[in-house]
């Protein structure tokens, strides 16, 4: 049985923990129970630190008993994608080539969460080293989609997406190099944000491609996402890409979006499957009804962005794995091995040319955003394929509209827009100006108030719940 506590939003949990109607111990125990009930089916977690989590919850309850609060996330269980260091535990990247057998310190972002009062509940499943696509030849089996376990939950933050959607934790961290927080966000019917490049430190996070990597929050509601983001930001001198300009995202959530000008990425939308496109078009109508002004915006073709991004990821990820590929190529799963090895065939001049192209593609986006508050468009072009359908995964996994904003470094948030006839979730993404996570969260939150989704739960957790 899943405890009803697990269906509360992070925001509700914060309030109840604060007023004392729930204790950190009760909340932690409820989510540990939910994980125990569902993980054999969904494989969302590859490591659960039950005893450490219980001990931490006890400490936090002692703090509360003294009339104090550890921080804005006091007593909230948060799951961490297993590519980020958590002190005292292994970081595996879901690979036989374990990154570290025992991390000597927390990643900066994990330390920030602890300072905010979070309870680190465990490490979530991912595609090997955060490369794209599920694979069945890894140390742990791939996570499954809580809305239909025959399908993949997208990724590479696959476990974080599945865990949040199935109420196994109220919040999780993912990483996003070509859409890996937003893809599971859309596929699992939750909220996944890729912040501005540099807003959240990546110190202690194993890289996939350094110039495109972002850490991002994953939650069931927009308000929860903004709260988690706010706890994660802060300048980190040990990450050379970390920036001090990051501002909280939860400040303007209740403000109307009347009068905001939002660009519509119509050329991207037209590439999506009918159900996906129509769902986003209905969401755009809802934004218009809320008083926003929707205007068409024009960008270079989507392929120009995705091809450019792919070359950069190939070259940068191979640079990370070059030594291991020489000595331990057989220890990789086939998907990661072939994706990463492809970078061995990108020459230095081509990589530099791709970065030059990236600059002009970014300028095109920046200039299209002038006079606009945000942009809206599809996130995925297709629904997630069946998890055992390799040709289907190959044909659909990399066709998406998220990579452009890894290239530009702009903040982007994926939010649910409804469900396909087959029962899998649909979604859109909102894109903002640099370090203006507050505006995209405001728009997304207002949309959520008009077209709520967080009261719907996957059948898997419903069957075992109430």
């Amino acid at each position, binding site marked *: 049985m899943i405890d009803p506590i697990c269906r509360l939003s992070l925001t509700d949990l914060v309030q109840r923990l604060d007023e004392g109607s729930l204790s950190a111990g009760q909340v932690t125990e409820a989510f540990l129970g939910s994980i125990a009930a569902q993980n054999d089916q969904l494989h969302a977690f590859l490591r659960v630190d039950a005893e450490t989590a219980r001990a931490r919850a006890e400490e936090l309850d002692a703090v509360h008993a003294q009339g104090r609060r550890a921080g804005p996330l006091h007593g909230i269980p948060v799951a961490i994608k297993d590519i980020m260091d958590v002190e005292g535990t292994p970081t595996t990247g879901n690979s036989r080539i374990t990154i570290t057998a025992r991390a000597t310190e927390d990643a900066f972002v994990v330390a920030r969460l602890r300072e905010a009062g979070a309870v680190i509940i465990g490490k979530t499943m991912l595609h090997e080293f955060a490369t794209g696509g599920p694979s069945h030849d890894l140390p742990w089996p791939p996570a499954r989609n809580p809305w239909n376990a025959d399908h993949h939950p997208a990724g590479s933050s696959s476990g974080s997406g599945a865990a949040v959607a199935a109420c196994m934790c109220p919040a999780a961290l993912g990483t996003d190099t070509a859409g890996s927080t937003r893809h599971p966000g859309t596929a699992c019917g939750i909220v996944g944000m890729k912040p501005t490049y540099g807003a959240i430190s990546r110190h202690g996070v194993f890289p996939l491609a350094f110039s495109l990597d972002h850490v991002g929050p994953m939650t069931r509601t927009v308000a929860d996402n903004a709260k988690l983001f706010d706890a994660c930001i802060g300048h980190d001198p040990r990450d050379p890409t970390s920036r001090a300009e990051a501002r909280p995202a939860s400040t303007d959530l209740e403000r109307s979006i009347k009068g905001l000008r939002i660009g519509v990425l119509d050329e991207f939308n037209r590439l999506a499957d009918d159900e996906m496109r129509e769902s986003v078009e209905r969401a755009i109508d809802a934004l218009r009804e809320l008083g926003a002004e929707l205007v068409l915006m024009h960008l270079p073709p989507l392929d120009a962005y995705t091809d450019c991004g792919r070359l950069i990821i190939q070259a940068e990820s191979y640079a990370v794995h070059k030594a291991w590929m020489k000595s331990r*190529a057989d220890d990789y799963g086939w998907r990661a091995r072939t994706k990463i090895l492809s970078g061995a065939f990108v020459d230095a001049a081509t990589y530099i040319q791709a970065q030059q192209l990236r600059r002009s593609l970014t300028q095109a986006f920046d200039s299209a955003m002038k006079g606009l508050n945000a942009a809206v468009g599809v996130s995925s072009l297709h629904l997630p394929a069946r998890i055992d359908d390799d040709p289907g995964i190959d044909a659909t996994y990399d066709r998406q509209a998220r990579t452009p904003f890894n290239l530009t470094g702009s903040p982007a948030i994926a939010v649910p827009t409804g469900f396909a006839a087959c029962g899998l979730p649909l979604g859109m993404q909102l894109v903002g100006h640099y370090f203006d996570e507050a505006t995209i969260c405001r728009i997304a939150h207002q949309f959520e108030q008009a077209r709520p989704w967080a009261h719907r739960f996957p059948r898997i957790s419903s069957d075992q719940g109430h």
Partner: protein
Amino acid sequence: MSVAETRARRSFDSRLADLGLENLGAHDRDRLWQTHLKQRKLSSHLDDTVGPASEPSVEFHTTKDTR
């Protein structure tokens, strides 16, 4: 296979051998080859569309730590 493709295939196989991966399985080798054909197309397109690399496109910062 065209002459250009045969030459590309030879250079592809030789690069794999340099990496010590001459015995890579057929499935992986085929996927890598398909990706490489696409890379060649993209690289050639970049030659046509991107000007000379006269400005830094990847940011570099000094450490400011010389004392």
